[in-house]
């Protein structure tokens, strides 16, 4: 047992959690006793003896897991071993349950963990739809209902959609740019392990006095400042998710900027890399705002500060401004990586170069810039200065331009291609284009002040956000998972089950969210457990469709688990893709490459005989030769084309 506590492990992490929690608890008790305050403050929003352990417990867990061991050794002046790779890579399934510095392991850790939260969030959604299947109250009371939709959204946004993209990029991005790992592997591992803390805090809120946080994922003040203890768990969970997100984004930025293989110019980067570069810029600049505002709410609740308590001079509206200054860019944090995935999938499976590559990349940057200028379109009915509405409306409409460029570029890429609709990842990418366009158009409608006022806080908003985040983000997540599944696991998935998953998901998704537009237009309010009987039929249909959607995800889970274990072996490049990750084995070697690849062309030169994106290992150095008979050469990212490597002789 002592030995187990010396080694970094989940056992030591559990012990660390207990010790950390106890220290936090003890600290509060001691300080309150010294200060002559009541030891256990149990007002509705207080509970410092539970809130502080909510911070110190997870920190103890991370310390116990070994996240800080190396840094502690360094800080203590003890010898550190930069070349010690004992925490790198996985040879058994147990290695996925420890602090691991291998970006591929971390990628899978992210994906599996986030899908766990996706399942929990999905089950909560099923509960919500079961309750809403008929007017009246059937399964949960309105208070619990409020907790359910709030937790559903928080889980889906903070610990599924945002981090699952980080997981996919974690696995793929270093391979794509020809790097042996991320720039900061230990920080990468720490980033991952902060994430379950966030999800568990959200879920744990159901267990605390007063129930789960119920002010929505937006946590508007003053609703949140006066909410029961569960709200503090939301505030803390967002801090862990945010810290994880910022650390990962910094890691991506440094990795992309400094660790690209020779010849990988910015204009030769695959669009997934561009997408993650853009997303990381958004995360680094925007996430501190939500972290700050959640701390302010927490301080209002626990320390009696008055940031948002109007009665004491606080400014209620400023919460919304700060929150949306993060949370509108967050919509793009949840979209841009998906754009990158779709570009990879469409180009590869349509066997076509990306149309307008440079414009696609610049559109991403355009979205990043514009996304900071639209936040107040979420606040048209908030009571803010009315003059602010029009500029925000204009910028909101403007942001449709770079987004439209991307849509048309994908369509142009698909134009005249040979589509194989048997590929699940391609099906999801095509489905994404349709559903995202619908979500985008309803977004443009919502950007217009009169329409927004009319449908504010109705199911039209729910329909829009789900078309964007489910039809948009989640479809791209599935496209990415299917596309890179062979690379990650070394196995092929069952394509037939994949198609079943897609069609069930599409039908379930459309059946669930299309009618919400109509009932929203007719005035059915969101975030309410009961509703007028006139909406009963539509809601029944929505609930049935949502259960189809839920069942479809079981098909996905079964396919992934069984294929991972028993699927046929995958070749290195089953999709005949051009990017670097497909030029190494499936799964890739522990440090990715024996020799760093040399990039000699654009990543999407499909249809060009002998086109190569990169030369691997010793290729090309000895023309006698490891250069393939038809090889080398290439084009700029714009797709200038590549010719065949030719041989001439007497």
């Amino acid at each position, binding site marked *: 047992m002592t030995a187990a506590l010396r080694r970094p492990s989940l056992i030591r992490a559990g012990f660390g959690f207990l010790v950390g929690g106890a220290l936090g608890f003890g600290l509060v008790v001691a300080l309150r006793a010294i200060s002559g305050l009541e030891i256990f403050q149990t007002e509705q929003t207080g509970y410092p003896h539970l809130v502080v352990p909510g911070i110190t417990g997870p920190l103890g867990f991370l310390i116990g897991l070994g996240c800080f061991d190396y840094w502690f050794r360094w800080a203590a002046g003890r010898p550190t071993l930069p070349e010690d790779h004992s925490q790198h890579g996985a040879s058994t399934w147990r290695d996925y349950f420890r602090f691991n510095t291998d970006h591929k392991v971390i990628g899978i850790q992210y994906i599996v963990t986030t899908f766990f939260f996706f399942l929990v969030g999905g089950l909560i959604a099923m509960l919500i739809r079961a309750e809403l299947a008929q007017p009246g109250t059937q399964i949960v009371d309105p208070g619990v209902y409020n907790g359910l939709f709030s937790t559903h959204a928080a889980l889906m946004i903070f610990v599924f959609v945002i981090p699952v993209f980080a997981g996919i990029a974690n696995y793929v991005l270093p391979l794509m740019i020809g790097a042996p790992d991320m720039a900061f592997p230990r920080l990468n591992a720490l980033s991952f392990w902060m994430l379950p803390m966030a999800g568990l805090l959200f879920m744990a809120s159901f267990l605390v006095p007063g129930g789960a946080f119920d002010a929505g994922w937006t946590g508007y003040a003053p609703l949140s400042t006066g909410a029961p203890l569960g709200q503090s768990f939301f505030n803390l969970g967002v801090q862990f998710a945010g810290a994880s997100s910022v650390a990962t984004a910094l890691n991506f930025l440094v990795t992309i900027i400094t660790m690209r293989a*020779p*010849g990988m*110019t910015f204009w030769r980067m695959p669009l997934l890399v561009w997408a993650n570069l853009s997303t990381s810029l958004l995360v680094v600049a925007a996430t501190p705002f939500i972290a700050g505002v959640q701390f302010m709410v927490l301080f209002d609740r626990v320390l009696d500060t008055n940031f948002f308590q109007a009665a004491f001079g606080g400014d209620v509206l400023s919460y919304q401004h700060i929150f949306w200054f993060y949370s509108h860019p967050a919509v793009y944090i949840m979209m841009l990586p998906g754009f990158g995935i779709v570009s990879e999938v469409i180009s590869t499976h349509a066997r076509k170069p990306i149309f307008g590559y440079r414009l696609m990349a610049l559109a991403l940057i355009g979205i990043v810039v514009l996304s900071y200028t639209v936040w107040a379109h979420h606040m048209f009915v908030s009571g803010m200065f009315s003059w602010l509405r029009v500029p925000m409306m204009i910028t909101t409409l403007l942001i449709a331009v770079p987004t439209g460029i991307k849509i048309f570029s994908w369509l142009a890429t698909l134009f005249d291609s040979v589509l194989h609709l048997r590929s699940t990842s391609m099906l999801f990418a095509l489905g994404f284009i349709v559903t995202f366009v619908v979500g985008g158009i309803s977004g443009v409608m919502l950007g217009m002040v009169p329409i927004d006022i009319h449908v504010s806080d109705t199911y039209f908003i729910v329909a829009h956000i789900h078309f964007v985040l489910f039809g948009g983000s989640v479809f791209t997540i599935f496209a990415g998972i299917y596309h890179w599944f062979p690379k990650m696991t070394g196995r092929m998935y069952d394509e037939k089950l994949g198609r079943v998953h897609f069609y069930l998901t599409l039908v379930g998704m459309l059946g669930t969210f299309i009618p919400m537009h109509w009932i929203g237009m007719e005035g059915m309010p969101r975030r309410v457990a009961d509703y007028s009987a006139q909406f009963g039929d539509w809601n029944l249909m929505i609930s049935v469709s949502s259960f189809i959607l839920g069942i479809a995800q079981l098909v996905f889970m079964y396919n992934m688990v069984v294929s991972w274990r028993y699927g046929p072996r995958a070749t290195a490049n089953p999709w005949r893709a051009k990017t670097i990750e497909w030029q190494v084995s499936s799964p890739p070697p522990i440090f990715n490459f024996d020799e760093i690849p*040399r*990039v*000699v*062309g654009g990543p999407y030169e499909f249809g*060009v005989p002998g086109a190569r994106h990169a*030369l691997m290992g010793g*290729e*090309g*150095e000895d*023309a*006698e*030769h490891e*250069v393939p008979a038809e*090889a*080398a*050469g*290439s*084009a*700029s990212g*714009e*797709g*200038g*084309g*590549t*010719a*065949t*490597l*030719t*041989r*001439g*002789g*007497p």
Partner: protein
Amino acid sequence: MSHEGIADVQADDPGAAVDWGEGGTVLAFLNEVAGGRRLLGAIRERVEAGAEEVAVVAPQNQPIVGQIVDRDEVREAALSRVEVTQAVLGDFGIETVGATMDRDPSLALDDSVRAFGPREVLLSALYESRYGLLRRDLVEWAKAKLEVPVTHVPVRVEDDSVRWDVTHTLVVGTQTIDSPALIGHLKRRADDHPHRYTIICPRSGDVGREEVVTRLATTLAELYRSEIDATGQPMSPEPLAAIQNAIEHYRVDDILISTLAGQRSKWLEEGLIEKVHEITDKPVEHVGEARGEVQLVASRATPEAGA
């Protein structure tokens, strides 16, 4: 060993001394233009000194002649430059490997160095003549950036362009470009008076690009053996557009159009000769090939003279 007609040809730029006794690769980089006799001479020198392999690379940029907008055609033009050079080198017994690279010449050169790991780069390029803020001299850039020695082998030798006694002839032909009769005619003209030939092979009938490359290389090699300066490349535009572009971008003193004789020539059927007279006042000579002989069909110094 004799240089067979190229011994007198040296690169303007002596470059850095490389000890080829250790073997290694020499990289010939063809920017915008293809090779020429100086490049051939420089490569042969390296091979004879011990270079083990020769890599011929061209960026996929716009050829100096052609104004091609279609991406595939730009790529083909680059490929043609490479293949013609390879074929000529092959004719002189030099084995090569060739590739086309990025459309940006500096990036393509950088890639080539990474891909082939050469010990020296022979940079076959025009003299820099563009000015302004965006001017980027590839030769200067390569010498500053690359770690391997770079030797500039200029294609358009300024000495030639100011020499009063050299006639710059644009030779246009595709079907007949490698006919011994035409080659003999070109040699005879060069014997009479110093000539420098720029050969273009525009699209013609169903002759494939690969076949044109082979034919053109045969002609170039023959001319090099006779110590005659010449460069050439297949071109994708139709013949009239190709001639127009060539007149615009190259120094051209006169034009020699080689076709099949009489009614067998589609170019004649389309009235190419007349159309060329309409667009230029340079002397145009038309030779038709029949039964292995070239026959002077028409020659006139100015449009007026022929009118």
